């Protein structure tokens, strides 16, 4: 990145003239590290994410271990029958809350990550094509984007997921979708259908924001001189798009990705809370919240157990997005 014109000088002077060269991502990381809240958020996310990955090994109980003689135990209580400790207590069916919350983390976070990844891929491809080529490509894609944007998000999300999930048995998804989903979320295959459907619904409506962003970036980058020189060198459209346009449109995509994680998480939680998302034996923070709220009047700690992870993750995604935005913005000199 940093180069200086070398003129004849005394030995050792060249090293002094050339500042220590530092890659772009090293700079970004150095700037990001200064954002203390973002770093704290990253740490919290890593802990929650780690717990969710290790769920099958660190969970003290089986996920769906129902015990009707130990329902709604408060946190840190010992089951009198077995003498075993329930760190976060038990839910309305006597299932261990800690176990379910980390399994739920796996589903909720993985849904958020898969949705956002799909959204980023679809949005980038459509947005870049639209902005880079212009003409009828841009026209077609822009009309589609406008149309999807006019459909109100929340109602259509609720309707689509309600229709799909209530009839999940009738919809047959190919095994190459179900298999990985079941494996990643650590759920049995028959439960994976619902999760996969929810991911598809959320992704199919969420890509417009990213597509708009990437279209704008492509429009901007297209006019740059380095694109002209790449063309003069005989670069094909595909090569220019992949090698020059995409990398230059990448930084805002990362910020959009982080903030998108939050909105995907919040949507999944809301839909599952209302009962149209992932259904009960499969835990998610949303459906756990839904059950917990109906018992909160006599057991006020219950909604806190799925609520706090939602709170922490939601804030963490936003702080990290904020930190990344600052770190990636070259106009800000820190």
């Amino acid at each position, binding site marked *: 990145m940093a180069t200086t014109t070398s003129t004849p000088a005394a030995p050792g002077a060249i090293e002094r003239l050339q500042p220590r060269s530092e890659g772009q991502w090293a700079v970004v990381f150095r700037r990001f590290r200064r954002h203390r809240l973002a770093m704290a958020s990253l740490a919290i996310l890593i802990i929650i994410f780690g717990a969710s990955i290790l769920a099958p090994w660190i969970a003290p109980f089986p996920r769906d271990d129902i015990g009707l003689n130990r329902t709604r135990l408060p946190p840190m209580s010992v089951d009198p029958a077995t003498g075993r400790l329930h760190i976060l207590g038990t839910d309305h069916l006597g299932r261990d809350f800690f176990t379910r919350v980390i399994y739920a983390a796996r589903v909720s976070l993985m849904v958020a990550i898969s949705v956002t990844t799909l959204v980023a891929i679809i949005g980038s491809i459509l947005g870049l094509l639209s902005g880079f080529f212009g003409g009828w490509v841009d026209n077609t894609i822009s009309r589609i984007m406008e*149309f999807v944007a*006019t*459909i*109100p998000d*929340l*109602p*259509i999300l*609720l*309707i*689509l997921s*309600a*229709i799909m999930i*209530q*009839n999940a048995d*009738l919809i047959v998804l190919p095994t190459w979708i179900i298999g990985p989903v079941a494996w990643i979320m650590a759920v049995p295959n028959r439960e994976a259908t619902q999760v996969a459907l929810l991911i598809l619904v959320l992704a199919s409506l969420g890509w417009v924001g990213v597509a708009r962003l990437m279209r704008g970036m492509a429009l901007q980058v297209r006019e740059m001189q380095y694109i002209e020189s790449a063309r003069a060198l005989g670069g094909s459209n595909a090569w220019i798009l992949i090698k020059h346009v995409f990398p230059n449109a990448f930084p805002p995509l990362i910020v959009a990705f982080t903030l998108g994680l*939050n909105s995907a998480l*919040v949507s999944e*939680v*809301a839909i599952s*809370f*209302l*009962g*149209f998302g992932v259904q009960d034996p499969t835990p998610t923070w949303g459906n756990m*919240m839904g059950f917990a*709220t109906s018992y*909160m*009047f006599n057991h*006020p700690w219950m*909604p*806190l157990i799925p*609520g706090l992870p*939602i*709170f922490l993750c*939601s*804030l963490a*995604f*936003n702080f990290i997005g*904020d930190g990344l935005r600052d770190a990636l913005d070259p106009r800000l000199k820190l």
Partner: protein
Amino acid sequence: MTTYLVRRLIQMVIVTILSAMLGYSLLYLAPGGPLLFLQQMQNTGQRRVTEEDIVRLKARYELDLYLPIRFTRWLAGFPAGPIHIGGVNLIPPDTVVGCAIPGQVRLRYPDGTVEIREEGCVRAVTLADLAERRTSRGILFGDFGLSQQIARDRPISDLLMSRLPYTIQLMGVSTLLAILIGVPIGIYSAVRQYSRFDYAMTGITFVGSSLPTLFMGVMAILVFSVLAKDAGLPYLPSGGVQGIRDYTIPWIGTVQAGSALDRTLRFIMPCAVLTFFNIASWSRFIRSSMLEVLRQDYVRTARAKGVRERAVIMKHALRNALIPFVTLLAGVLPTLVAGAAVTESVFNWPGMGRLLVDALGNSDYTVAMAILFISTVLVLIGYLVSDILYTVVDPRIRLT
């Protein structure tokens, strides 16, 4: 301007019809529906369901018509019977538009299994038959048909109308409050950038706009209803519009169910949650657009001329900073319908969002489609209004 408006209106009609088609195909693809309970009845042997019953019910829900005919009848109430102009039948009245009783073909496979497949038609429905039915005027003209499950056989528009006042009350008051509180906070934060107030407000609004309303709602109930009540402090009732029986609140006394006080107490929490969320996002918005404007040359010019600081901010800066705010306000319009589904569900508030959730929970898809349709139309109107308002507040912008 006129040609622009005409073009926009035509576009709006096209988009409306397209989204109606999308919605209707979803409705058509959705299993369940009104005939599901017939099957259940037959399976449990509660009552014998005759073929005539099925024919009658199918006719009532128009399930015996072909899909394109059903769609046009749902959309615009057409055809409502034989089509004739000036006494001349345009299309023969015995044209088949549907099938009341499908023919059944017994297929016997070589391995002995028997499959019954629907094929052909025993009794067809013709255009002339349609004249005897109730035909909706079509959703384009505000007739959404009949509810299938929630309030069986009552017009959906009645259902919507009964929920509308609550939604307007909730969304109207919270939007107004959010503007009244959020805009001044945003302005003050921008004018005193990096002051203690600014830091506190950016912190609070950052948290407020990033937290899901679901979490805020549940926490509000937990703190102000559950924990406050347990601690013997004055508490707020947790949900609904009005109570069923009287209750006593410490320091305030007995609250009569259905009294103005009862209704107010129940309104506070859902309204506060929505207001807080909107304040958080809008004051951030105002702050950044105000900061942008304060850096402009004309603001410096105004100051250099010796205009009082107050006038610089209120006249020169604020008026320009509010321009992008107009789009935000137009975006509120569609959320009036189902934007607060989560908040309304948490607080058991009987608004339109709650109606959508109830409708979907009961597989009453026609109600859901009506809500979707209304909100789509409102989104389109919102876009149009914001574009027109733009030209009003910013004379540099011309619509062509």
